[in-house]
């Protein structure tokens, strides 16, 4: 896989566009050559190079139905982000270099099949992000950047500890994910139960920070608000997915019994995320903050889907990761569009922009509907799958009903989502227009192209989700095949 060559790029806009485009094309090639009929559990395109053979460490990458959509999403969103940041003039060389290094890191996270490599890639993504927020960000960027990196790094040290323990204290002595996945539940044999739980929780917390799960989410609004548009797009579109991916791959993959054990907690956390994020989104006056909290809310659905412990819910969760990536990217692009022209994100000052920007307004309404989860768009499909999955969750007894309760409560989140999204649309694009916005121009062609591409994707997946679910389903079935007593 040549995906990892992208950091060799030289730096300016076209080169960045070329490299990210090439990566996108390569990942599409990957998609087309992915063998759907192979056994669902197998990783494909596994590429393996010894790194430190003395310690069983290797450079090993590959994809399965879980990581493939994420690879596709990453390369797509980064490519879009390059075009979104077409206006960036200040120190553009460094900017695009950082962007591409980050893409390398993120793709590495989604494809690496070696815990050590995974951790390296996970950290590799942090440094460029720190610079991207810290140099090109808004007024409080330094604070946001350091908060972002400290939060994530603190969390990833927990992961590091867990990996060390898995490596040194387990009988296997390997970082090879494929081998480890074949030995689920035996990883920590020989350790005390409290230690096992501690390791599991530390891994969970690490990914929970990234996801982000309330109450570990406070870095997110700051980072979003201060980051430039393209970076917000990537942050929401791709980086948050790393947390969810980690939970699916490692927490669920390595310790399914413990994950099962805390299913109710997952559902409740998901519910809190959904409702709390939505409520906070309602209360914001900054466009970006609204969307940042909506991200918190939408990522809650992923957690909820996890708690279902049946393939439907899990498919929904993975699909939600993808669709949220595209839809939130769209929302942030529109914020960027508005901000570029008005230089404010304050809802109180905006309004009536549709008179000057009819095209943008129209497209934004569609996006908002997608975010709300209107039928026919991909958000609807994934949320529907999640609700179906969690309502018919595979737990038994009281837990079954608790999760159903959480599901019903979470459904309120959709109503809230409709409230804040449509309210956002109304405050920005409709209503009386302030005098000073008379000069505004409508959305330009570069922006139009990026928006259209994403929007087509949203519609296609909304109408024919099997396009992606076909890839996801075997993976999620495999993820659950080890579960104890999967009930009807």
């Amino acid at each position, binding site marked *: 896989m040549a995906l990892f060559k992208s950091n060799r790029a030289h730096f300016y806009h076209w080169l960045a566009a070329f490299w990210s485009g090439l990566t996108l094309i390569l990942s599409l090639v990957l998609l087309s050559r992915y063998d759907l009929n192979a056994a669902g559990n197998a990783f494909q395109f596994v590429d393996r190079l010894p790194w*430190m*053979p*003395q*310690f069983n460490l290797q450079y090993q990458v590959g994809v399965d139905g879980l990581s493939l959509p994420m690879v596709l999403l990453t390369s797509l969103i980064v490519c879009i982000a390059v075009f979104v940041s077409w206006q960036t003039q200040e*120190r553009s060389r*460094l900017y695009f270099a950082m962007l591409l290094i980050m893409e390398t890191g993120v793709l590495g996270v989604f494809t690496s099949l070696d815990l*050590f490599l995974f*951790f*390296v890639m996970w*950290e*590799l993504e*942090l*440094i460029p992000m*720190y*610079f991207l927020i*810290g*140099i090109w960000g808004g007024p409080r*960027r*330094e604070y946001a*950047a*350091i908060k972002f*990196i*400290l939060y994530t*790094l*603190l969390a990833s*040290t927990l992961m*590091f*500890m867990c990996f*060390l*323990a898995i*490596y*040194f*204290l387990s009988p296997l002595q390997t970082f090879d994910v494929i081998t480890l996945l074949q030995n689920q539940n035996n990883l920590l044999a020989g*350790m*005390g139960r409290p*230690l096992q739980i501690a390791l599991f929780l530390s891994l969970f917390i690490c990914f929970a920070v990234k996801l982000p799960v309330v109450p570990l989410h406070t870095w997110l609004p700051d980072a979003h608000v201060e980051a430039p548009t393209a970076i917000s797009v990537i942050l929401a579109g791709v980086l948050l997915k790393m947390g969810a991916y980690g939970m699916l791959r490692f927490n669920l993959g390595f310790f399914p019994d413990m994950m099962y054990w805390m299913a109710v907690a997952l559902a409740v956390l998901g519910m809190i995320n959904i409702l709390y994020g939505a409520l906070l989104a309602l209360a914001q006056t900054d466009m970006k903050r609204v969307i940042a909290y909506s991200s918190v809310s939408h990522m809650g659905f992923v957690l909820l889907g996890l708690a279902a412990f049946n393939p439907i819910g899990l498919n929904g969760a993975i699909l939600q990761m993808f669709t949220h990536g595209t839809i939130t990217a769209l929302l942030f692009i529109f914020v960027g569009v508005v901000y570029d022209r008005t230089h404010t994100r304050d809802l109180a000052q905006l309004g009536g922009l549709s008179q000057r920007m009819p095209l943008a307004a129209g497209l934004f309404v569609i996006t908002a509907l997608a975010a709300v989860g209107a039928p026919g768009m991909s958000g609807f499909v994934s949320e529907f799958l999640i609700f179906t999955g969690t309502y018919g969750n595979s737990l038994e007894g009281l837990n079954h009903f608790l999760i159903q309760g959480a599901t019903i409560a979470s459904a309120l989140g959709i109503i809230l989502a409709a409230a804040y999204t449509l309210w956002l649309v109304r405050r920005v694009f409709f209503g009386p227009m302030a005098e000073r916005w008379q000069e505004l121009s409508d959305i330009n062609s570069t922006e139009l192209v990026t928006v259209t591409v994403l929007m087509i994707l949203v519609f296609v997946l909304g109408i024919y989700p099997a396009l992606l679910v076909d890839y996801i389903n075997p993976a999620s079935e495999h993820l659950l095949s080890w579960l104890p007593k999967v009930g009807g």
Partner: protein
Amino acid sequence: MDLLGILPEILVCLTALGVIVLDLFLDPAKPRTGKLAFANGLGLTLALGTLLGLHWGGYASVETFSGAFLPDLTAVFFRAVLLLAALLTLMLSVGYVQDKLRHPGEFYSLMSLATLGALFLVSASEMLTFYLSLELLSISSFVLVALRKTQARSAEAAIKYLIFGSISSALMLFGFSLIYGLSGSLNFAEINTFLHQQGSEFVYRFTAVEGQSAPAFQDGHLKIELMAALVLILGGLGYKIAAVPFHLWAPDVYEGAPLPVTAFLSASSKVAGFASLMRILETLSADVTVPFWTRMIVILAVLSIVYGNVVAIAQQNIKRLFAYSSIAHAGYLLMGIVALSEFKSRDMALLGLHYYLLVYVLMNLGAFAVMIYFAAKSQSVRLQDWTGLGRQHPWLGFVLTACLLSLTGLPPFAGFLGKFYLFGAVTMMGSQYLWLVLIGVLSSVVSLYYYARIIRVLFFGQTESSGSSPSEQTPPVLLALASGISLVGILGLFVFPNWVIDFVAQINQLI
């Protein structure tokens, strides 16, 4: 007499003397730093070449000079690292010495002498040689610190260093004499044999009370004479590696010394200290002593890591910041020493220590190379005066950033692998030491905060960019070369750590 074994040392010694002689014959009116540095560099390169040539030529390691000198593989490794450190220090010092120091000849010759002391120290195999080499290293360092003698701070630092140094080496000497008194030998191998055979005489034994079995002798308390000897020796070496609570000299000395000397102290002195600590502890390791010194080292490690990292946050002066950061790094390395105490984690710990010390030299000296240039540019070592320097010098800024991230322990730099080996070794000891690893990794996050502050100042600062066209003045070639070597080193060692692993595996097989 096997002169081949100490050929590198002979060359370094000749270099030190030759530089002084050369200094006499050069016209003081003309700039002579370049010539002196060249002569010195030539000598050190020759020594390094000889050392590596001997090693690759299959020169076998034997104890020579009546057991005073043991050039085994560990010693070969650390001597190479020390010579590399001296060469890098030399490269980064040229500009500074030319501008700031009136005695270039003395600087270079003393630096070579200190290196010579360090070289002997890491391969000494009996206590007198050990002590003499340590003194050679220390006394040269005292003078080096005082080299800017017109400056009050430099003189003050030198006096502090001298007093601390003399007291600690006196205490260590006392510890040695106790050991000598107990074992009747100065030779490390003989002392080790003695402790293994008769060590149980130095613990209090409890007689069995009815029904209970007698406590194993590890549970008994060490008798006072052996305990005192251990404490004194560890204290003396703890001073050399600047571990808390023997660190008090470090911030002041680092601040007062000329910048290249600070770089030298933070790299060579530390490497020599750790290499000798490893050897001494190996000597003093027996069933009776291991639990005792492990406990002591654990305490030192925790204190150093926490104190160094926390206090570094508050520093505004780059030199002081690096003093505290070097204290913290001593703590990480001490974690590796802790892991030496158990057989199952020993290989990993050895690897971690070797690898981390090599990488530490590279990343620290790389950072210092850039900082010396920036300090000269801004005429200041205060952090806030460096605003925007990274934007004016993107290449050097990049090197400094890479070195700082490596010091933090972030991939893709070698510092990360080093920490991985060290922490991994401690994890291998079992879950009862996981809390130590936790402290280590959490402190690494803390350290990111102050390292990132430097990066932030360099890059994020809103400079007025008044007339600051990028790289209006190119840095000296040698300094750029030193920073380049460091960068290549920390990236290269991350991707290809295998040769270090293999080398250390070779050491283990011999043991």
